[in-house]
């Protein structure tokens, strides 16, 4: 295992493990997933409103 601890395999594995832990934590603390209430496969052409949850959005001041 010496090679593992001195190579890029260690940080790459740590990243994947951390992300896995984040997703487990998220699934336990968030609303459950439900494929039967899923939106249309593609936003273009759907009747949905844009979510606006992305980098450029600044919510209006109250």
């Amino acid at each position, binding site marked *: *295992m010496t090679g593992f601890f001195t190579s890029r395999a260690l940080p790459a594995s740590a*990243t994947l493990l951390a992300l896995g832990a984040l997703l487990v934590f998220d699934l336990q603390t968030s609303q459950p997933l439900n494929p039967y209430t899923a939106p249309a496969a593609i936003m273009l052409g759907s009747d949905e409103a844009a979510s606006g949850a*992305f980098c450029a959005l600044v919510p209006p001041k109250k």
Partner: protein
Amino acid sequence: MTDISASFETPSKGSRLFIRAALIGVALIAILTLIAAAGVRYGLLLAIGIGFGLTLEGLRFGFAGPWRAMILRREPAGLLAQLIAIALVAIVAFPLLSGDHPELIGAHAAIGWAMVGGAFVFGAAMQLVLGCGSGTLVNAGSGNPVSVVALPFFIIGAFTGSYHLLWWTELGQLPLVTLQGTSGLGITLLGLLIVGGVALAVAPKQARKVPRRLLVAALLLAALAVANFVVAGQPWGVVYGLGLWGAKVTSALGANLSASPYWASAAHQERLAASLLTDYTSLTNLGIILGAFIVAVWRSGLSAKLPSLSAKAWIAAIVAGFLLGYSSRLALGCNVGAFFSGISTGSLHGWAWFVAAFAGSWVGIRLRKPLGLEG
């Protein structure tokens, strides 16, 4: 006990084939599981994210490195490839945004003091860790220890920056300016042409060619960015997702985010309550990391030895990681959300971001040696 790294270092032909088949299998299983558990759109976005990761790592397409090459050696190839990809996306995105598609939204934001300052700091920080928004994810997935250390602080910074965002934007900003329609597309393409022309004009003769690898990468990235736009209804972004990861953890640990007008807003409250597996930006971020990991294992790249860096260099990576996150929220996007997606969907702030971040990169490159990040 199986030595994991040994399987990366000296794989026989048979085991290499098995590893590669397993990598493809893992990616497909992840996508199909998400489709079954949450819905087709989310699976598609994870697939698009994996495509981003495969392209960025597989074809070595980046943002920080090419800007460094342009500033230090006047080599324009990487920058030109970025401009080509942006132009290709703009050619598709402008007509869609001008058409009768209220479900689509561009990466539109106003230019302001905090936005320009944030872009400048981001440009400097991305040269310190040699990774931008997408680059830090790619590098973390491929086992770059500096990026792995910087990423958690990037997340904390993105969360903190978004928490304070409205205070910063109140320092002053111009009215929102967007380029639209055929004339807007024409101005955007002309602007990209001028930047490309200047980059070529100052380049040495032998460097005035874009390698086929980068042209293919630009084409693939453009196709994936358009797919992201069509499937999600919003352009490709990175830092919103990272800020959300930080907010989710902070919130779940008991912190009350209602004091932040940003996180208290309806759109973000909805995101905080829902799973990350239904957040578009989070899904493409996860895909980028997974895609980069797949390429690294595929090429046996994880066997590369870890570098020996000074304590000062690690501290610099941590500080730069935090600054990348914080400044990118002030800048209303990183190299992806503001530069790539902003310009390609007609937001003037994308151009302002480019100028400010390029100036910041110039400063960041000169800070690397004193901070022990260069031998």
